[in-house]
């Protein structure tokens, strides 16, 4: 496969206007994860094989239906990167034996939710990065175990109500910094993305098409069902996640972290929180000023440390 491809996503007009990923998938209306996946698939193209850990997205390919035009493999929740290793090795052996021509080669792409990426699949992912596996990893992060009814996961943000955090203050823990954990392995590339910023997303995908080694992506995936909001707000909420500084868009390579879209003036985080039912208890029946201030101060502290924005 050619690892050279020019960067050509400069303007919104450069975004693909027809789509490769098949329609008719069983994801919820307004799914932020599917929105990311279809943009990524448009750019990566058909020469891909997806290795999918158990989660919402495993419902994409239920025999005999699939939205993909190439291969797809289902693994248990913790072992998608191990599955990817097997697929990559098999492809490499076939290439070496000349049973597969270089133009038949495919890119191996892992898709998992945050439950697998932030939690039980972390060991297999760490191992894959140790071995410098040539693959792409896409985590669609909807901040909870969405497919089973939004139980909390290590990606759940502080104060969010989940089906296992029903108390008056929501989830007491804090979202794990997966970007930092992955970057600490020094893989070829790590980035945060979001479908609501398609140009930033497209540029990053275009960039990793020309690279090899572990290329790790975490996409915040607004989830109407799990976060409790009207599906038509999916893009609006995603954009607010960036504009309020909740979801910093950044990338890591060669030991450096760069912020790729710094909000010029960060909006107050409550603009993001108040659109979502999972944070309603911060505003009703009375405003929890201290709770909101704590969330805001953690965001401010992040950007202070990052020395940008």
């Amino acid at each position, binding site marked *: 496969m050619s690892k050279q491809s020019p960067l050509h996503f400069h303007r*919104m007009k450069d975004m693909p206007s027809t789509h490769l990923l098949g*329609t008719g998938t*069983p994801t919820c209306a307004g799914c932020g994860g599917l929105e990311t996946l279809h943009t990524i698939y448009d750019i990566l193209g058909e020469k891909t094989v997806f290795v999918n850990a158990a989660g919402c997205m495993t419902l994409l390919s239920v025999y005999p239906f*699939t939205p993909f035009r190439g291969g797809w493999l289902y693994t248990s929740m913790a072992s998608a990167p191990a599955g990817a290793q097997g697929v990559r090795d098999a492809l490499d052996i076939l290439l070496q034996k000349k049973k597969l021509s270089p133009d038949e080669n495919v890119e191996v792409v892992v898709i998992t939710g945050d439950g697998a990426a932030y939690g039980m699949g972390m060991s297999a992912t760490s191992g894959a990065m140790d071995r410098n596996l040539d693959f792409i990893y896409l985590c669609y992060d909807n901040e909870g175990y969405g497919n089973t009814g939004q139980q909390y996961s290590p990606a759940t943000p502080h104060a969010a109500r989940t089906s296992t955090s029903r108390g008056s203050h929501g989830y007491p823990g804090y979202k794990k910094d997966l970007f930092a954990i992955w970057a600490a392995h020094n893989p070829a590339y790590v980035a945060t993305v979001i479908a609501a910023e398609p140009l930033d997303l497209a540029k990053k995908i275009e960039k990793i098409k020309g690279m090899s080694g572990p290329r790790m992506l975490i996409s915040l995936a607004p989830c109407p069902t799990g976060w409790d909001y009207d599906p*038509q707000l999916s893009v609006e909420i995603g954009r607010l996640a960036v504009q309020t500084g909740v979801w910093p868009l950044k990338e890591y390579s060669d030991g450096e972290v760069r912020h790729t879209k710094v909000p010029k003036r960060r909006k107050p985080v409550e603009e993001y929180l108040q659109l979502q039912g999972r944070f309603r208890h911060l505003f009703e029946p009375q405003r929890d000023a201290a709770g909101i201030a704590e969330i805001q101060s953690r965001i401010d502290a992040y950007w202070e440390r990052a020395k940008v924005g």
Partner: protein
Amino acid sequence: MFRIRFHGRGGQGMKTASRILGTAFFNAGYEVQDAPRYGAERRGAPIFAYVRADKSAINERGVIDRPDLVCVADDTLVGMPAAGVVQGMDAHTVLLINSHETAATWQQRLNTEARVLILTATEDVEDRAELPYIGSRCAAAAAALTNVIERETLVAALTEELGHLPADVITQNRDIALRAFDDMKQHAGLVTPGSMPSASDYDRPEWIEMPFDNAAISNLAIHAGATSVLVRTGLWRTMRPVINYPKCSGCAWICSTYCPDGAINVRADGYPEIDYDHCKGCLVCVAQCPPHAIESIPEHVAREQEAEASA
């Protein structure tokens, strides 16, 4: 044994309806099963939940195929084969539909021997996925029709099942449920327990004898790409986005890129086109279109307009 199916769309509370009715039966001294159909329980998608209740142990399992009562929260599902509303209905079945139409109209449309009752549609909402209180109303109406559940038992079950909601929401649900219960009392006892199927009544299907094949050739291997397009997720839609082309600026990417399902493609002339076979009706395109050239209209209204136009 009572066998009751609740049909609705994801988000209308059919699972809750089955839980309320199940708990009410249980508190009235019955053995109970209540379960939603596991599958694509997505907002707007056709779903159903079911309840079995009997005075003795229930050995039956799985989906109810011979219902005593079929309760339909959304009348647009009745004619949709994928929703399976009329499945297994016979002269013994009561069909309760939340509808503006009359029982006689439905009786005629469906040409059914089943007794049709109407749960008069009270709330008129644009988006059918947001029919308020319909789960509680269906559970209450079903309870009244069986005539074995007291008012107080229903209220206790409803309060137990909705206990996680704010007090005013529970009160609202209770009042609306009790109104449905009282309205249906005139038909109390119309739904009666169906008989237990016996092995001797079992009609042997017309088997086709097929020889065993080698697994490698008898397993259907699918090599075609993007077969998911055969699944019509457009059926989930309760609100329809409609492009007003004179207002569309032909920006050529915004609705198409943001549509989570990739159900908007750009035509050769540079204007977008919505694929209604697959659009799930999330309305992200309506919210994002810069010149507000996409409007949303209730799906049932759009269908009526289409029917009129073609008539």
